[in-house]
């Protein structure tokens, strides 16, 4: 058997082909344009209705209008809400001239953060299990300069369907597979809940569902795609913030959109996950962001750990030989009395 080039990292021309699919459809994906997201969360609900994903907790999180918190085993779409005392290009928030004091965003975010510190798995179960922040110590509103501007960023996050998907690489049962559309899905009849994919994902997307025991994440509505339908979230999205289609076409559209936004003064606009040379070989679901990725809870420079797998095995080999040598030498000493 021969392995194709860039099996573990780097750009891949034909992801489905690399997974053995022949005569497959073009690679399909999502382009999520956060600049037109209205934060309605239709994507979250449409996803749950179609995929019969269970409710994951009726808790007020205090993260602006976000009460989902993060992607998880029971939240395959997650709309992030970020309030910032900053300006968004030519957008005018109408703060100027009002009798305002310092912004409250730092203090409120601090309260949420300190509550998360107490949460199970450090808040990592948001999107998977209920979590009630309860009462947390108040953070006094800081003194500081008057706020002069405001913007409210919203972004519907989703599984990235990486070109080099760490979850897929590490899955020991073959439950995770690359489909003919180039997407990555969990075969629920196979997954035995080993949890390896959870630790492997550099985006914190996939998780194990308590009570069910298996790993769950966005399937990019594989079943719908098989029937020629578009994913439920993209179909519902009122403002076409979530766009579904052939990845190449989406890339082109995204670049056009980026140029238009930059031309209109949104200098911070950037694409995230579209670069085939990044640490995961580019994503099947990519985004147009209006701030740095970390602000949205995304990793700045995601890397598929398997990229370094050969080196790791090499180190392990050396260590193993070392162990063998140590054992040998332990017995090579002259026999004691």
């Amino acid at each position, binding site marked *: 058997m021969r392995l194709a080039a860039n099996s573990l990292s780097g750009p891949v021309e034909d992801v489905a082909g690399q997974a053995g699919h022949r005569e497959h459809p073009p690679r399909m994906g999502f382009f999520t344009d956060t600049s037109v997201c209205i934060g309605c969360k239709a994507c979250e*609900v449409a996803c749950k209705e179609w995929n019969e994903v269970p409710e994951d*907790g009726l808790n007020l999180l205090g993260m602006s209008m976000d009460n989902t918190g993060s992607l998880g085993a029971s939240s395959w779409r997650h709309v992030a809400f970020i309030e910032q005392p900053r300006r968004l290009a030519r957008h005018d928030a109408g703060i100027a001239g009002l009798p305002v004091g310092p912004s*409250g965003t730092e203090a409120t975010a601090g309260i949420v953060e300190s509550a998360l510190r107490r949460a199970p798995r450090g808040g990592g179960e948001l999107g998977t299990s209920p979590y009630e922040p309860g009462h947390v110590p108040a953070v006094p509103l800081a003194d500081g300069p008057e706020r002069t501007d*405001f913007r*409210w960023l919203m972004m519907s996050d989703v599984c990235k369907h990486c070109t080099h998907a760490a979850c897929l690489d590490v899955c020991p049962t073959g439950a995770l597979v690359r489909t003919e559309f180039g997407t990555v899905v969990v075969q629920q009849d196979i997954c035995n809940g080993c949890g390896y994919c959870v630790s492997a994902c550099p985006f914190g997307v996939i998780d194990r569902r308590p009570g069910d025991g298996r790993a769950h994440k966005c399937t990019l509505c594989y079943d719908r795609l098989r029937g020629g339908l578009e994913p439920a979230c993209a179909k519902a999205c*009122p403002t076409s913030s979530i766009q579904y289609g052939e990845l190449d076409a989406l890339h082109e559209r995204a670049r056009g959109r980026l140029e238009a936004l930059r031309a209109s003064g949104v200098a911070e606009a950037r694409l995230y996950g579209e670069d085939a040379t990044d640490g995961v070989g580019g994503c099947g679901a990519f985004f147009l962001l209006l701030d740095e990725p970390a602000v949205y809870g995304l990793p700045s420079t995601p890397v598929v750990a398997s990229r370094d797998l050969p080196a790791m095995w090499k180190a392990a080999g050396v260590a193993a030989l070392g162990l063998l040598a140590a054992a040998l030498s332990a017995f090579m000493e002259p026999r004691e009395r």
Partner: protein
Amino acid sequence: MGSNMAEAHPVGFQWVMEAKEKGATVIHVDPRFTRTSALCDLHVPLRAGSDICFLGGVVNYIFEHDLVFRDYVAPYTNASFIVNEDFTDTEDLDGLFSGWDERRTGYDRSSWQYEHEGEGGTLAEPSTREHATGHSCGASGPRLEGGSGPIRRDPTLEHPRCVYQLLKRHFARYRPEMVAEVCGTPVEQFLKVCAAWTSASGRERTAAVVYAVGWTQHTSGAQLIRTAAIIQLLLGNIGRPGGGIMAMRGHASIQGSTDIPTLFNLLPGYLPMPTAETGSDLATYLAAVKADRQKGFWRLADAYMVSLLKEYFGERASAENDFGFDWLPRTSGDHGTYRSVMDMVDGKVSGYFLLGQNPAVGSAHGRLQRLGLANLDWLVVRDLTMIESATFFGDAPEIATGEIVPSRCKTEVFFFPAAAHTEKEGSFTQTQRMLQWRDKAVAPKGDQRSELWFFYHLGRKIKALVADSGDERDEPLRALWWDYAVVGDEPQAEDVLRRINGYDERSGRLLDGYVELKADGTTSCGCWIYSGVFAGGINQAARRTPGSAKDPYALAWGWVWPANRRILYNRAAADPDGRPWSQAKACVWWDEERGEWIGHDVPDFEKSKAPSYVAPPDAVGPDALSGDDPFIMQADGKGWLMAPNGLEDGPFPTHYEPHESPVANALYAQQANPTRRVYPRPDNPSNPAPSEGHREVFPFVLTTARLTEHHTAGAMSRTLPYLSELQPALCVEVSPELARLRDLEHLGWAHVITSRAAIEARVVVTDRMAPLVVQREVVHQVWMPYHFGARGLVTGDAVNDLFGVALDPNVFIQETKAATCDIRPGRRPRGPQLSELLARYRARAGISSETGTARDATPPGGGRDGEQEA
């Protein structure tokens, strides 16, 4: 303005986003920065309830900068009409118009009328308060004797008594500085709105206004919308594509339930209910609906009414018996839902039906609602799920305070499970007047039934019970035509819709439209504006042909009343000569060769009436409409910058403070709308007006709105896990500044207090709320969503408990978008301690039942606006 469209109507908002993409400037004027604001070009804050001042400021700006679209305004509006010399403006009477009657706390509108050519000047207009009041005009143009002319006009718009000059003078003091002082909107921000709005005017450009209940739920709600209409008329933005005023209505068929009303003051098609005064016979009634000498299609109201009576009473309606007119009940004044609830509390109402409605949560003054429910003989609740209005005997907050004791509450409650929208066929009328037919997907389960089933069979049973009673009062029930087609035991909605569309009684043919209706009893029609929905014998509402480049209005998708016209008054989309104002904004136009109006939309004008047509002076009704009278339902064919009739509170909109306001009216001595309806009763206290002192007790402005993730009173969202998890708790949004002032903690508890109630919520501190400077003082605003109640997956106090009952005088809608309140950290007290807390607040504020109900800012003891019940 007055709409949080991205949150309340996300799918509709796609068109706004698309317009923005194409270069439109999108502005959101709202007390709070919302998800709508985040996507607009400009968010402009203002104090809740100060909108008329804001919009009046825009009117002023238009005049100051000479931005009136004269080519449109002069021919299409009543700008050039000369008004009676007895008319006196609020500028001269410090907030009142001429005709004020202190005793009736209402206006005599005779001085607001147009002057006519020739003898007599104005025509006398009967105007007692209960006659031809705003609430009985519905969406039609009100009656106007002499609308067909000849009205004195000054086409140069220079005459000091022409509407144009009166309007200009009326708003002359609504300068940007005044707007800043009243609304708290900084001058610079306000001017940005003016500049952007007025630039979208003229032949090439238009602007559209979107509003929702942020405008209607005020004691000056109708006038608020009129102010926007005035701006849009002045800018030439009515009747044109990309123009207009768009009401974003909140319920699947709330438009339909107004067209085919379940409203006390209306019959189908905006025909008024007969009143004690107009109800002596059909002729008297019709004379009150339409004037003899007026223009437009309302002149034919006799045909609409007789056809309705023919549908109601079938064979039993004949010319001999006035078509059964005498069988109709008569109203006398206010029978609105709030009046009825007070009557329930007072033991005057025996039985109450709640049909998909949850007033214990969704109506203002929840406590009053629940006390009303607890004092009935019986209550019928029909809903998908158990709601607070059915279970009040077990979970009302008044049980904790001891005000409702289950073992002493006599109300017998029947809960009937309802069929869902997938389980019955029928039509909804959406917010653009479009009827869309739904097919039945599955059968309902168990006892679940449609309202159609329920009322059809209830009617059948009642008719059977009275069939032989011999009692004269049962005659209308016996006469009632009730032979709708039934399959199994299921009445057929499509048959009902056919009867609504109407038949030619002689031939049995379904009518093609309302122009075929006759006043001689040869046609029947359940709702004249819906006539045509079965044109050609086809259910037009069930059409599903998508739009296309050739058919941008998708004219074969659904059916829009009237006559499938998508843009009302679209004659105004063409210039007086009948040419499109611009090619880009072409909608309908006059085709000289064919001699008819054509275009992308169905012309809202008589098809073959040329633009140059001048109606003969003695013509009436549609015949009196000239070629440049686009507003074919109006009694004078014109867009009304001034409303000489039809409104309770004045011919021009005027800024009055909300019923509860932290500040005095900076424009007039008159504090609040003098004609607003107030109900001074011990169980309906109001927070004091500034002139009454104690403003420190309720220093903040309270306003409410929807969240995307919930639906109104919550029965259709709080019960669903997928929606509940997205907004799981009642919260109160406050600015960092108010949080600091009141020691409120993010995610902590706070309680909000008015003279009616104290409710608790989790605090959300956010920059999206910001204080304003109003009249040199800082005013804080508090926002809450109103979806929560005692039941469901997620629960919370009912926000509407905070509000009292004070109503718009025209439409009797309550003011729940602006009130005053206090907010304190921590949870509210429970049980009797809660009652004590409220009593302490009322004592501190010196509140009696009369507080806040004074007509004007003069000390109490003068005129009262309290509804005087006999």
